[in-house]
């Protein structure tokens, strides 16, 4: 190896896959170059990456600087500029920009496609990736400025593949596995994610928003893609009608022939399955009971938390009248504290061509683009101007499902048109009956 890395070497042991060993193998492969690749960035880029990381382990500080390079010509996102602050010692990573490549919905891949991605990134970049970044993109970690356009050209011309979002853009939308391989999915997350991603390519590449904006699609209230915590617009699958019950299968759980929760608790002896203790008593609305050997659900009272379905997937299935809820305004804590998504549309059909959903999206964007301050997330604007304003701008009707509880204070800012007779009154008329 080019640099001694005594601290990093200590991360090669232990069972969990070692990123240090992986980068070392990449460094060795680049040095050997068995495929005779005409590397377009320094051959020793991986050696220098380990070298500069070792230095950070020693110093307890990063050695990267930010650069404002944002993308390829005409795009305002998809690339993050990075420069090393020790470029003489680690010349291979002196310029080390990130590229975000839009991932396919569901993160399914054919090996044919992945190999082509690898070949391109081997040839024109460091060969180091993130599979995947936090938002969902495939991340290419480290290349030089000159290669950015070349990589984009090859991606679009040879791989039919575009970059993802960064900056004040729509960020690359992400979804859960959905109907592809999950019985809980209430709508086709992949189809909706893919369709809307394509619909809003301009918003994704050319920043005109006050700040970042995220869509995420969860097929059911289990929220595997965490949309409710991190997406400005979170689409969560739900249903309106009754949970489908297979009474025989319920009895199979009760009798112990079927393991609860898809066998997720097999690592400990929790004793025999007790449907009262494990399902009925834990139901948050207490809308279930046993009637002899029959499980009964008062579906009208159900809030679709998924617990009973998660515990007995072979006995209980989501309803048939499915769609999604739309929650808005979630964000991480900076600045004023974390915000969870707020229910805006309790139920909407999630079917092609998604016209109703697009209407909601676009009315929210129009509002936020006009009223949002620089670097203000949608959730912060909602907090600043109030939920009523959002309703007014989206033209949606108020519904108790939008709130946890009604307001705690009577300080209602009545508008003049809401009060009979308006605000203008004749003081002299008043004085006829009330002395000064």
């Amino acid at each position, binding site marked *: 190896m080019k640099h001694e890395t005594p601290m990093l070497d200590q991360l090669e042991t232990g069972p969990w896959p070692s990123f240090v060993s992986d980068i070392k193998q990449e460094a060795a492969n680049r040095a050997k170059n068995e495929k005779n690749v005409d590397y377009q960035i320094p051959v020793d880029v991986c050696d220098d990456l380990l070298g500069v990381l070792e230095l950070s382990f020693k110093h307890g500080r990063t050695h990267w600087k930010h650069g404002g390079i944002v993308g390829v010509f005409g795009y*305002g*996102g998809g690339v993050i500029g990075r420069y090393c602050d020790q470029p003489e010692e680690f010349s291979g990573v002196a310029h080390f920009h990130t590229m975000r490549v839009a991932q396919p919905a569901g993160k399914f891949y054919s090996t044919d496609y992945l190999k082509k991605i690898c070949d391109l990134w081997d040839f024109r970049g460091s060969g180091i990736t993130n599979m995947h970044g936090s938002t969902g993109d495939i991340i290419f970690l480290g290349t030089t400025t000159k290669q950015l356009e070349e990589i984009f050209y090859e991606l679009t011309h040879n791989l039919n593949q575009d970059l993802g979002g960064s900056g004040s853009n729509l960020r690359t939308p992400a979804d859960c596995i959905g109907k592809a391989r999950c019985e809980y999915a209430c709508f086709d997350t992949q189809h909706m994610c893919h369709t809307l991603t394509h619909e809003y390519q301009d918003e994704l590449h050319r920043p*005109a928003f006050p*700040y970042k904006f995220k869509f995420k699609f969860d097929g059911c209230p289990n929220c595997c893609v965490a949309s409710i915590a991190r997406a400005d617009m979170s689409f969560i699958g739900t249903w309106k009608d009754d949970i489908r019950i297979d009474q025989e299968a319920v009895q199979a759980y009760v009798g112990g022939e079927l393991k609860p929760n898809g066998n997720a608790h097999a690592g400990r002896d929790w004793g025999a399955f007790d449907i009262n203790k494990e399902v009925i008593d834990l139901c948050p609305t207490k809308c279930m009971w046993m009637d002899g050997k029959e499980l009964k659900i008062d579906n009208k009272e159900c809030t679709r938390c998924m617990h009973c379905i998660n515990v007995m997937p072979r006995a209980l299935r989501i309803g048939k009248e499915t769609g999604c809820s739309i929650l808005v305004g979630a964000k991480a804590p900076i600045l004023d504290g974390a915000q969870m998504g707020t229910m805006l549309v309790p139920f909407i059909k999630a079917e092609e061509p998604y016209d109703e959903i697009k209407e909601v999206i676009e009315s929210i964007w129009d509002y936020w683009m006009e009223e949002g301050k620089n670097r203000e997330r949608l959730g912060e604007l909602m907090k600043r101007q109030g939920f009523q304003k959002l309703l007014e701008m989206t033209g949606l009707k108020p519904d108790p499902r939008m709130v946890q509880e009604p307001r705690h204070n009577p300080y209602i800012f009545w508008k003049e048109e809401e009060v009979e007779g308006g605000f203008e009154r004749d003081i002299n008329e008043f004085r006829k009956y009330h002395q000064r």
Partner: protein
Amino acid sequence: MEYEEAKQKVIDELTKKQKSKSKFYFNDLSKILEMKPREAKKIVNKLVTDGVLEYWSSGSTSMYGLKGTGKQAGAEHEG
């Protein structure tokens, strides 16, 4: 507003402010253009493809500036 007129207006306004800063939010541009954001965006996109404006990004936020201006431009365009 015609494109050429809009272009000149953006160049003039941003040049005036050049002394103190070179990067602007999208909102600043739509204010200069006196347009609704969606209308302004069409002009701004074209100003970028015509090489008048360029993007700058903090990673989380995007800004716009006249091409080649700003104190970091030298370092980032790598000569």
